[in-house]
Each structure stands twice: as structure tokens, then as C-alpha cells.
């Protein structure tokens, strides 16, 4: 009796649910759990990867990089370079339109690039080299350089934050430090701002006016063919709830699956778990070069001899399949990666040598403050492992726990640890962001103008400048190796591990692109 009542009640609920779900089945909608909440819509104002991914939905780029690191025209139809390499002329494809119906014009492109160049590290370099941008006509514009610059296309096709997306001129004229809140672009999706609930839901619909390129998609290059009508980003902060939602079929795709939930979802035959990010991310130990004790090079070197990247890989990724050592200052798997001098990190760990270096450094027992962000599953394990290593080599290490918001504020302090400063923090960068000397900000030695930690290494800066002048890939590789050899000596930071976070999707989806960015064109739903 009890079971029949239960069955009746269950049937009633299921029928009611089905009746209510029926109208929504008319169009193809992908329900997707993104890596984070979309807080800002402006991918120039912030470098947050979630905003970059949003940018790829609604904006388009002049050029784009493919999986072989080749740069291809995207919005641009054709381009010409003068014999002296100083003049570049770009012509836009036919039929490009913004979501408000206005045509994409040269003026829009110039204004967008100018704004991007104020914020992006490679954009700033391009800006330094630029004499002028001029409109030839509505579809053609011209770049004049002060001197030849080999990375014009690499800059305009930069795949990760900040990406040089093209906005309408009226929006692109906004100050680069003021947020643009209107998501009008010319990309393959349109954002439905009326349905945006920050912290919960972002809705995109197919841009039916978008004309994709004919080439096959590869990373952000090639044809951006949208095969669904609507995409809903549903931010579910609790990973157990997200796992239940995809297991129950309430969502189709979960961008970043925590390693501890892989076994649970693997049991479901309707779910596929894959690594779609070929380069993954790189963890790092960053030192404060301004304050004792890590203003002492020998102490930084000491830690280098005891860091075991495999430990960090397991700590971050959980499963060895998703994490591996990468003893290179340029992302493993990219053209400039090398093993030049890498034995200091990849060779046999040498505790005695590390202790000897500590002794030689004249370390006097100064407190070493390791900042931790317990709410960041990539930062927290690194901080724990490093603190243990520091104690092991005889340093007076103290782990100071907080949240990520506190860490990124506190790391800007240049004060001694007694006045709220710090000695070490950990972070991670996506693979493309550390792929070249132009992008790898952590490697720079620009002193107080450098990225947090402020290493002062004029020699490294000279090498970086030389890299920009290098005439071809072979020369670029040589200089990159010289930079890496120098970095193993000066130790601006220590790369900890290269890791990927798998993605999970239901088998009714197909066509997911393998790319360091989460791209949603080419994905179809049965």
C-alpha cells in the first residue's frame, strides 16, 4: 500500500514536471556551468578569464591564433605589409555587423585597439611601436609603425586576457579604466541583458546576422558556426550541487570538474569527462624580492632545489593524469618551452644543497610569511606544500590564511612582514599567458614597476627587449633559452606544476572545441 502511494505520488510529480518542461524543448538550449560568476562584461577592464570567455561569445577579433600557434585573419579579410615592414593595411570582411545592426567600421577597430593597448602588456608594446592608426575608408584602415615590429599579428590575435576584441566606437572610446557595461559586439552570440542575473545566470542567443568564416575552427580561429539557439550560463557555486545537476540532466556541460568528483560522474554513461584545454595552467611560487629574506638570491635558489613539481601537481590536480611537472619558464607544449638549465628543478631533489645555500645566504631567522587563500583550491595546496618545504630547509615560515580577496590586496604591499607585508604567495596562470617573454609578466625584472614581487633584473629586461627585436622563431628560441637560464639563477619565481581541470558534458552534446579558452561555437545538442 505504502509503495503504491509512493509510486502514485512520484508519477504525479513526474507528469507535472514533464508538462511544465514541454514548451522549453522547442529550441536548442545549452545549459552550462561556467568556471566562475560573470561579474564584469568588459574584457579590457578586467583580465578575469570568465570575462574573457564572455568576450569570445559576444565580440569578434581582427585576428585569431589557432592550435598550431599560427595567427589567422578573423574579422579581417586581407592585409598587406609594406616592404619596409612599417605600414600595415587591413581590410575587413564583408557583412560584419554589430548586434545593434550597425556595420563594423574601421573607426570601431581603431578605437577598440587603442583602448586595449592601454591595458594589455602586449598591447602596450604595440602602442610603443605605433606611430599612427588611420582610417582609409569604412572597411580599410592602416597602421604605421615607428620601426619594424615582428609581433603585430601575434598582438592582434592574442588569444588570452586581455584579448583585443572589437567594440563599437561609441563604447571603445570609454576610458580603459572605466567599465563598459553594454555588451554590444559583433560576435557569434548576443547577450540577453534583460535576463542577466549576476551571481546566477547569463543568457546568450545565436546572432543570426553573424557570418562565420569558411575555415574549420581551431582555437579562436576559423569559422565560428553556432549550432544552438540559446546558451544559458548557470553559475552553481557549490560543486556537489553542480555534480548532482549534471548527473540529473538539469545541465548539459560543466566547464571545470573538481578532481574529487571525477569518480562520481564517471559512473554515469551519459556523461563524458575530457580535457579540452591542451595547455592547462601553471602554478607558481612568487617571492617578494624587495624585502628580506627573499631579497637574497641564494635563499630563492635554496627553495628551487627542494621543490618537487610532482607533489604540487598532485596537490593541485588530485589525479596524476591531470597534473605534471613543467620545468620551463615558458609554457610546456608551446614553441618557446625548453629544458635549458631545467635540471635545477627537474633533477634529483637536494635537501643538503638547499640547507647549504640557506647557510651561505646569511639567513638570520627572519620571519617568512606565506600568504594563503583557503577559498582557492589551486592556491591553498601550493601554500601548504611550500610552507612545509621552507620549514624543512630551516626557515622560520608562517602560513597566514585568508581568502583570495585578501591575498590579492595584501600582495600589493611593499612593506616588511612586520608591517603587513609578505614573503611568498602562490597563484596560477593559464598556459597562453606564460607562453612568450612578451606575455610572461612574472618573468620581468622591471623593479618596482614589475608585477607583484618586484624583481629588479636589468639584464632580464635587456633580453626581453632583444627578444622583441629577434628576426625569426629560431632567434626567438635562443633568446628565450637565455632568459630561462638567467631565471634559474635569479629565480624571479618557481613554476610549480602544469595542470588541467577536466570538463564534463552530457553525451547529447557534440563538437566541443579543444582550446585554452572555453569556446561555445561549433557545439551542437541532440
Amino acid at each position, binding site marked *: 500500500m505504502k509503495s503504491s502511494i509512493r509510486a502514485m505520488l512520484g508519477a504525479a510529480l513526474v507528469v507535472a*514536471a514533464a508538462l511544465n518542461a514541454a514548451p522549453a524543448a522547442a529550441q536548442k538550449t545549452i545549459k552550462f556551468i561556467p568556471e566562475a560568476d560573470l561579474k564584469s562584461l568588459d574584457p579590457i577592464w578586467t583580465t578575469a578569464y570568465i570575462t574573457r570567455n564572455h568576450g569570445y561569445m559576444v565580440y569578434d577579433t581582427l585576428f585569431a591564433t589557432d592550435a598550431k600557434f599560427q595567427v589567422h585573419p578573423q574579422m579581417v579579410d586581407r592585409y598587406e605589409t609594406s616592404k619596409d615592414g612599417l605600414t600595415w593595411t587591413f581590410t575587413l570582411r564583408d557583412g560584419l555587423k554589430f548586434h545593434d545592426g550597425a556595420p563594423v567600421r574601421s573607426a570601431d577597430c581603431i578605437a577598440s585597439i587603442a583602448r586595449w593597448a592601454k591595458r594589455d602588456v602586449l598591447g602596450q608594446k604595440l602602442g610603443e611601436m605605433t606611430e599612427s592608426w588611420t582610417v582609409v575608408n569604412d572597411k580599410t584602415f592602416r597602421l604605421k609603425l615607428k620601426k619594424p615590429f615582428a609581433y603585430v599579428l601575434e598582438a592582434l590575435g592574442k588569444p588570452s586576457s586581455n584579448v583585443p576584441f572589437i567594440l563599437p566606437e561609441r563604447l571603445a572610446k570609454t576610458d580603459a579604466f572605466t567599465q563598459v557595461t553594454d555588451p554590444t559586439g559583433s560576435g557569434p552570440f548576443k547577450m540577453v541583458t534583460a535576463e542577466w542575473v549576476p*551571481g546566477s545566470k547569463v543568457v546568450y542567443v545565436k546572432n543570426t546576422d553573424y557570418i562565420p568564416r569558411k575555415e574549420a575552427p581551431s582555437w579562436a580561429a576559423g569559422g565560428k558556426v553556432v549550432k544552438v539557439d540559446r546558451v544559458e550560463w548557470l553559475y552553481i557555486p557549490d560543486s556537489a*550541487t553542480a555534480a548532482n545537476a549534471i548527473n540529473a540532466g538539469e545541465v548539459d556541460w560543466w566547464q571545470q570538474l573538481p578532481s574529487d568528483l571525477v569518480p562520481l560522474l564517471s559512473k554515469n554513461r551519459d556523461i563524458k569527462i575530457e580535457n579540452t584545454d591542451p595547455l592547462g595552467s601553471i602554478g607558481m611560487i612568487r617571492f617578494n624580492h624587495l624585502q628580506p629574506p627573499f631579497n637574497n638570491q641564494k635563499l630563492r635558489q635554496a627553495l628551487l632545489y627542494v621543490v618537487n613539481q610532482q607533489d604540487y601537481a598532485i596537490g593541485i590536480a588530485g589525479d596524476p593524469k591531470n597534473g605534471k611537472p613543467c620545468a620551463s619558464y615558458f609554457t610546456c607544449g608551446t614553441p618557446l618551452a625548453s629544458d635549458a638549465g631545467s635540471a635545477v628543478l627537474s633533477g634529483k631533489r637536494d635537501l643538503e644543497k638547499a640547507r647549504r645555500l640557506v647557510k651561505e645566504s646569511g639567513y638570520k631567522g627572519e620571519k617568512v610569511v606565506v600568504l594563503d587563500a583557503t577559498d582557492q583550491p589551486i592556491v591553498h595546496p601550493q601554500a601548504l606544500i611550500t610552507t612545509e618545504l621552507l620549514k624543512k630547509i630551516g626557515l622560520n615560515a608562517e602560513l597566514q590564511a585568508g581568502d583570495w580577496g*585578501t591575498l*590579492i590586496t595584501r600582495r600589493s604591499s611593499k612593506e616588511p612582514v612586520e608591517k603587513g607585508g609578505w614573503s611568498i604567495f602562490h597563484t596560477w596562470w593559464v598556459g597562453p599567458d606564460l607562453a612568450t617573454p612578451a606575455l610572461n609578466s612574472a618573468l620581468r625584472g622591471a623593479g618596482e614597476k614589475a608585477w607583484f614581487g618586484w624583481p629588479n633584473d636589468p639584464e632580464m629586461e635587456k633580453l626581453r627587449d632583444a627578444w622583441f627585436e629577434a628576426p625569426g622563431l629560431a632567434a626567438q628560441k635562443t633568446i628565450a633559452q637565455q632568459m630561462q637560464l638567467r631565471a634559474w639563477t635569479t629565480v624571479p619565481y618557481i613554476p610549480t606544476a602544469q595542470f588541467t581541470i577536466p570538463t564534463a558534458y552530457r553525451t547529447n552534446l557534440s563538437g566541443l572545441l579543444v582550446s585554452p579558452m572555453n569556446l561555445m561555437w561549433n557545439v551542437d545538442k541532440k
Partner: protein
Amino acid sequence: MGVVALFVFSLLYISPGDPAAVIAGDIATAEDIARIRAKLGLDEPYMVRFGNWLWALAHGDLGVSIFTGLPVARLIGQRIEPTVALTLCTLIVTIALAVPVGVVAAWKVGTWIDRSVMGFSVLGFSIPVFVIAYLLIMLFSMQLGWLPVQGYRSINEGWWPFLSHMILPSAALGTVYMALIARITRATMLDVLSQDYIRTAQAKGLSSNQVLLGHALKNASVPIVTVIGIGIALLISGVVVTETVFAIPGIGRLTVDAILRRDYPIIQAVTLLFSGVYVLINLAVDMSYTFLDPRIRY
């Protein structure tokens, strides 16, 4: 409210964290962060910022979210319906169940019914809301497939979509509250049932229902209503956890997200809103005393 406003603003001012650093991201330099801070007016002195905020507040302007650039009033407006719906559903279900259960437990004191109610109360207090939530999801969503795992549907989308998304969150959130009210109802009823006028009513031949509801419950209602009022504070704190577990886009999650990323205008507005709600609830509870017990006058 003024004290709350001053307190919240001061607390945020001295707390660590900088929204400009969060916005700028990992690649930004200290100079980039300083420029963003200046653009947002976060480099202004304490008194200037407090004065600007108060002035805007006095004109009904809650400000603009530092991150989304959207008006805080709009963000709260988007989130208020799920939270109010969840709170009301929980309140209705728990009061409708807990008060009768407490009355019956008191009436049947010492029996298995009473012991069961007390056992449930202890469990209700002891098991955290999120554990109850996961257990309910596991049973009703994953095993039986009757109810959705997560999300919220507005009542405008139909009764069933709305209710199907409210049943599990309300049950999870209501357990603690139900345990509290049932326990208080039982204790108060036991006290009232031992009074002489109850014996007199029974001696006059009134039915059990008339004695329980007409005489005992009415006289026990003042402490029960007080606890219901206090319990709403408990509900609001529970809402944060429940909204997170069930991915309900309510005020609770808005608050937590705002705190994690230091979105000061939202934190300030939500805190003021909550304190205003508390004041109103306390006022309503105090007013209800005069209705429930005519001897009470203000």
C-alpha cells in the same frame, strides 16, 4: 538604522581586501590597481566616502555595484523574490506543522508521541542545514527523480515549476526552525496546561479541542510568537546556506558573493535591508502581543 549604517561602513573600511585588486586581476600591476581605485573613488578619505554614501542613501540611491556596474537596487530587486518566496514557504510550512506537533506533544506528554517529537527536535537542531539539504536531494532528486536538484522558477512561470523548486529548499531550511517552534510550543503548552483555569475548563465539560485551542494555545501564543520572530533571524542566516546548496539566486547568495569580492555598495545595502527587516519583524511581533493578550498595552 543610522548606527547600523555607520557600523557597517566603518567595518568595511577597516576590513582587509580591495575590490580594485579583484577587478584588475592577476596580471595587473600595482599602478593599474591604483588607477582603478581612483576611478571607483576608493582612494577618497573615510569621511568623504561615508558622506557621499549617506547623501546618496538619503536620496534613495543605494549606489552601483563595483563589479557589474548595475544599480544595487536592481540587483536586490532581482534577488528579493526568491528569498522572500523561500522564507515564506518555509515559514508557512513550519508553523503549520510545528505548532500542532508541539501542542500534541504537550497534550500527550510522556507518551511515544511526545518522545518522537522531542527526538525530532534534537535531530533538527543537531543536523546542519546543508546535510539535510544533500540528503533530501539524494533521495528526492537523484534516487526518485521527483524534484529538481537546483535552481529557482518564478511563480509567474506556473505553480508547479515554482513549488517543485521550493519543496526541497523549504524542507531543508525549515527543519531547524520546525524543531525550535515545536519545542517551544510544547514547553509553553505544558506550562499553561498545568494552570488552574485549564482544569476548570475541563471540569466544565469542554472538549479537548476547545481546551487546547481556545484556552491553552491562545494563552501560550505570546512566547511562541516571540520565538517565531526570533526564528526569522535564524531563517535569514539559513537562507544563505540553502540558497548556495540549491543554487537559488537570492539575497543570501548575493551577500556572500559581494563579501567575497568586496563589493561594498551591495554589502552596505543588503545589511541595511536586513536590519530594516529585523526592525519591522520585531515591531510586528510586539504589535501582535496586544492582539494575543489584551492585558498588554503600550
